[in-house]
Structures are given as structure tokens and as C-alpha cells.
């Protein structure tokens, strides 16, 4: 193993350790592996995108329809903190995204959904509290 190879390997491996254990912030692909490590919260609280079609039907879009980062709590927090212009831009991006998949989407509504994770009826949450955050057409 040459000296430069040793230096390269030490640098990359060191970054894996320092970011992995959370000593340095994420520098993808060097990332902290602490996801799902804190105790889960009692309630789930996130942004849901509702597509309203030309015929008035409503389709709820969840994680698998949009990039994962969209619907997580962090995104909801950022959306709530954002100014009106930023909110309008975000809403327009979601509308474009949904229209690119389904031309019948007329407008979108953004809702905050909140429910107690362990309060269940059958396989779903017993009660979901919905708050309208905005919308765009």
C-alpha cells in the first residue's frame, strides 16, 4: 500500500467515521447513520398534498407519489416557516409535478395531517386532525 493510497484510505475512512457517528455534519455520501434512532414521537404530523381533479374528485398523495423529503415533518416545518412567496412556489412545484403525471389535476390543496400513532381502528389511525395550509391552481 503506497503512502498516497494510505492517506486517501485514511481520509475517506475517517470521514465515514466522523460523519457516521455524528461528530461532523452530513456531507453526502458521508452521512450520519442515526436515522430512526431517537424514540418515535407519539403523534405523526406531516404535509399531505391533495389533488383536486376537473370532475371534483380528490386524490390524496402520500410519500410514494412524491419525493420522500416532501412529506416529512422537516418539510412541513419549513413550509410553515416559509413566507407567502416561497409557499406559492412550493405549491406551484407540486401542482406541476402532479399535472405531469395526470393532466386532469385542476388544483392542489396542502393539508397538515396529525394523528396519535397508537390510537388505532383496524389497521389505520382512529382519528386524523386535518388543517388546510394553502392551495394553488
Amino acid at each position, binding site marked *: *500500500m503506497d503512502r*498516497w*493510497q494510505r492517506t*486517501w*484510505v485514511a481520509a*475517506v*475512512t475517517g470521514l*465515514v*467515521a466522523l460523519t*457516521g*457517528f*455524528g461528530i461532523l455534519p*452530513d*456531507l*453526502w*455520501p*458521508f*452521512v*450520519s*447513520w*442515526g*436515522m*430512526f*434512532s*431517537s*424514540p*418515535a*414521537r*407519539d403523534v*405523526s404530523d*406531516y404535509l399531505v398534498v391533495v389533488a383536486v381533479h376537473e370532475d371534483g374528485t380528490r386524490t390524496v398523495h*402520500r*410519500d*410514494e407519489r412524491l*419525493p*420522500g*423529503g*416532501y*412529506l*416529512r415533518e*422537516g*418539510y412541513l416545518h*419549513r413550509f410553515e416557516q416559509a413566507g407567502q412567496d416561497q409557499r406559492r412556489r412550493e405549491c406551484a*412545484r407540486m401542482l*406541476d*409535478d402532479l399535472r*405531469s403525471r395526470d393532466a386532469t389535476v385542476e388544483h392542489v390543496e396542502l393539508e397538515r395531517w396529525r*394523528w396519535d*400513532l*397508537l390510537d*388505532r381502528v383496524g*389497521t*389505520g*389511525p382512529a382519528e386524523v386532525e386535518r388543517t388546510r395550509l394553502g392551495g394553488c391552481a
Partner: protein
Amino acid sequence: VSTATGARAWAPLVSERLGFAPAPATGMVALRVGLYGAIAIWALTLSPTEVAETAALHWEPRSVLRLLPAPPPTAGVVAAWAATIVLACAAALGWRGPLTRAALVPPLVLVAGLVDASFGSLSHRTALTVVLALVLAPAPLAAHWSLDARRRRRAGEPAPAWRTAAWAWPVAVARIVVVLVYLSAGVAKLRFGGVGWLRPESFQRWTYSRLDRMEEPSQLGLWIAENPALAAAAAAGILVLQLSVVSVLVWPRLGPWVAGGIVAFHVGSWLALGLQFLLQAAVAPLPLLPWERWRGRLGRPRPPVGPVPPG
């Protein structure tokens, strides 16, 4: 002085345990073919135009992608995607040694970064694979069972040594990286979650928080979440696996068991929670498995012994 002498006495043992002692080329070949083959297959599963369009639509780059002033054009993403496939195949076949692998890094980082780090949040699905491609770029992986080896043979050059430390260190380094990834995940659970992470209700909440967002939640996930004993067992199993991965550095013979645990963990979390880490599940076991022992069982003759070539 005695401490330094003691450290020197321990150094060969530690080096051997960590896998840096001379080793046959089998592990190095398996790592090369497996890692770069998996990268090529992963890239083939992507639609580059969809990757480009999604990134442009939701452009909010993180980490190294912030170096880009704007989302890359679709043609650029398609070119990087094609380069990733071609160079990963060439690297798997051992063509032009470190040059091919170094050339693969920029397009791979771009394509994987667009998938995992371009939308305001970070996904971890490709991180380990990209790190392995980075750290192994300068490693001698193409000396045996490769197009480079065939070229040397045709040129009348002597065959390289079959057993040497040069073939051992890439596998040892890859093993340390894999251990660091899983160990840091386990330590984070102890650090941030503590004993509370092992309580069934904590695992149930994590599971429901994923499943409730799915249009068709996994029946396996619901079954685990509805049974506190299963939820507690799953949480304990994950923590034990992640903390015990480090054992392969002390007892390399545990490698197949740990590798099996890693694959079971990723397949299980995919089926139960929809967490798709199949690329990582394919790549992480590679440096942990006893490839030479398995090759010996096949009764293949060893290649002739010779000097160590560069690259």
C-alpha cells in the same frame, strides 16, 4: 519505551485480524465484480430522464450537490448515467484498473446524488456504495480474473502473485467501512434512543409512522406493529445486529453470519416498512464473506505465482 515495544508486538496481530495480512486474490476479485456489477445493475434500474426531471422540479440540493449552480440538464444526466453504466461494467471486468474506477466516481456521485440528495432532504440508499467506490478507486483490484490480467498474459508478462498484502487491503478497508456504517447506526440508537428505543411502543410508532403514509401498507409491517412482543423482538434484533457487526473485525469467521443478518435486515425492512436498501444489501456483505474458502470447496486450481504488478 515498553508501551512502544508492546504496540509493535501487537501490530502484526491487529493487522492480521483486520485483514491486512497477505491474502489470496479471491476476495479482491469478488469485491470488484460484486461492487461494480451492483452499481451497473442499480444504474440500469433508473430512468435518467425521470431522475433529471424530478431533480429539476424539486431542486433543493444538499451536501456536495450544492456545488452545482442549477439542476443539470437532462442530456447531461443521461450522459452521466450512461457513463456510470459503461464504466461500472468496465470496472467489474477489470479493464484499465484504477483509471476506470477513478473515472467512474464523478458520474456516479452526480447520478446517485441527484437521486438521494437533490430534494431538500437526504436519502441514505446509495451512500455506502458511493463511499466504497470512492475509497476503492485507487486500489489494486484488477490483477486477477480481469481484462487487464488477460492483456498482460497475452503480452507475455509474468502472472502476478496470487497471495499478497496488496490484494488484502482493499477488502480489509471495505470491511472497516461497512462495520463503521452499521456500528454508527447501532451506537446512534443507544445514544439518542437509549433503552426507550427497545420498548415495543417505540418500534410500533416508527412502524405506524411509515405504514400510515402508504396507500397500501405492508401486511407484514402491520402484523409486527400490532404485536408488541414482535415489535420488541424486531427492535432488539436490529440493535443487536448493528452493534455486533464489529465482531467481524475480531473474528472474521463470523462474516457469513453477519452478512446474512445484514441481508435479512434490509430485505425485512423493505418488505415490512418499504425501506428499499437493496443496493446496500447487495454490496455490504461482499467484504465479509469467505470467498477463498468457497473457491477452495469448488476445487479450482490456483493461478501461478509471480511478481506483484502495479494497479
